[in-house]
């Protein structure tokens, strides 16, 4: 694991320009009065994309074959991509929280400290679920196919989001919609601790399931 983490961080360090652009966009967003919750999500999403991008670097010039001769096996390779992503998004979350605390004295953020912490934790969970979908796809498909699949995936997400919104509008006031609203109302009345545990359980299940699939993909691969 250490071998692979050092390799990936060395590769990430070669992408200083990308990191710089990422930070500049973040600063521009901040200046443009965008809310800190969105900015945090954006930065963490980018941290995930950069982490997954290390798979592209590994595959360049048939590099995977050599990586598999280092003291790391196929399973460790898959696990390391989850660990790398988690480390990077948590580091990004911590960085955003620090920025929040530093700037809250002179920027009138809409979010209070408690809300900011909750939103950041929510982003970590959401992005880990996104990573759970994307990591197996990254490991299964080559760069070309991956691009097409990612576009399809984002398309599906957009259709579900827009379709869901339209459906909610159409169904407004119906018995089914009232039942759904009732469900969410019930959830919101649950103690915070229960909700947090439930969310953590869902995220953990998604990651474990995804990890199992990724390990299976790696074990079947030929280099």
């Amino acid at each position, binding site marked *: 694991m*250490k*071998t692979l*983490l*050092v*390799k990936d961080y*060395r*590769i990430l*360090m*070669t992408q200083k320009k990308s990191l710089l652009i990422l930070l500049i966009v973040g600063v521009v967003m901040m200046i443009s009065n965008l809310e800190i919750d969105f900015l945090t999500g954006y930065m963490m999403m980018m941290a995930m994309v950069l982490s997954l991008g290390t798979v592209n*670097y*590994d595959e*360049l*010039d*048939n*590099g*995977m*074959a*050599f990586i*598999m*001769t*280092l*003291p*790391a*096996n196929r399973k460790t390779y898959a696990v390391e991509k989850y660990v790398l992503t988690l480390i990077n998004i948590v580091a990004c979350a911590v960085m955003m929280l620090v920025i929040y605390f530093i700037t809250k004295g002179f920027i009138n953020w809409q979010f209070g400290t408690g809300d900011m912490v909750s939103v950041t934790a929510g982003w970590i969970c959401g992005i880990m679920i996104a990573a759970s979908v994307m990591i197996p796809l990254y490991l299964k498909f080559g760069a070309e196919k991956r691009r097409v699949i990612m576009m399809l995936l984002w398309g599906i997400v957009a259709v579900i989001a827009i379709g869901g919104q339209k459906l909610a509008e159409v169904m407004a006031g119906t018995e089914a919609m009232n039942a759904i609203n009732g469900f969410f109302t019930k959830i919101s009345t649950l103690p915070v601790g229960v909700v947090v545990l439930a969310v953590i359980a869902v995220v953990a299940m998604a990651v474990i399931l995804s990890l199992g699939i990724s390990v299976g993909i790696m074990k079947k691969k*030929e*280099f």
Partner: protein
Amino acid sequence: MVIQLENAKKNYGSFELNCSMKLEPGCVTGLIGRNGAGKSTAFKLILGLIHADGGKITIDDKNAMDLDNDTKRKLGVVLTESGFSGYLKIKDVAKILKASYPNFKEDDFMSQCEKQGLPKEKQIREFSTGMKAKLKILAAMSHDAEVLILDEPTSGLDVIAREEILDMLREYMNKEGNSILISSHIASDLEGLCDDVYMIENGQILLHEETGVILDEYGVLKVTSEQYAKLEKEYLLCAKEESYGYACLTAQKAFYQENYPDITIEKAGIDQVITLMISANGKKET
């Protein structure tokens, strides 16, 4: 450390690899064959990079597909078309090796790189072919590996760069117990380095012999058709029809020198052996 392939099989469409070979501790074993003969496939099987369709592949009695990290740390590997990411620099490679191998000595590695004229500030992708090859070898030798597994380490290099790499390998073999498994399609690289060689063609091992035996006891008989008709064929490995008659390969050069003093007998190098074996399709002369 013992590396062994027993009837290792791998199919790629019409190509089938089926080979058995063994690397003993303290030996330099060569695998020679044309491009596409199956050398890299055999190496990938040994390193567990591809799944075998049959047979047994072991490193110190451990299945090649399930090698633990401690066993992997005893191997130094060079693959012909794969290596560290081209976006990394030598200092990055050193950090990765340091994180991977407890026996890695960073200072020694960096000074070796300097000695070999490898630029520290350039990304690997900017290196020349020779520089990349030297870096791969230095990285493989940097952590006290007991075995070097080198797939075409001299491929695409000029004579001087090839000789420099072979010198590095000779130096590595000065340490007792070290061994090397090396593949090449350049016979001269292996003649001066290997204790024994396996000759592979179309996925099959055609010949396994000690290099000294090939150089001392193998010979090529150049005979006319009439001489060939009268020739004792029991000790011929194969024969190829030539404009002057036949070129015959034997592992008993002395027998023919003694009994057929009037025929031309030339010393056989690995190149001649492989050329004759392949052109005669590896069939033993009867």
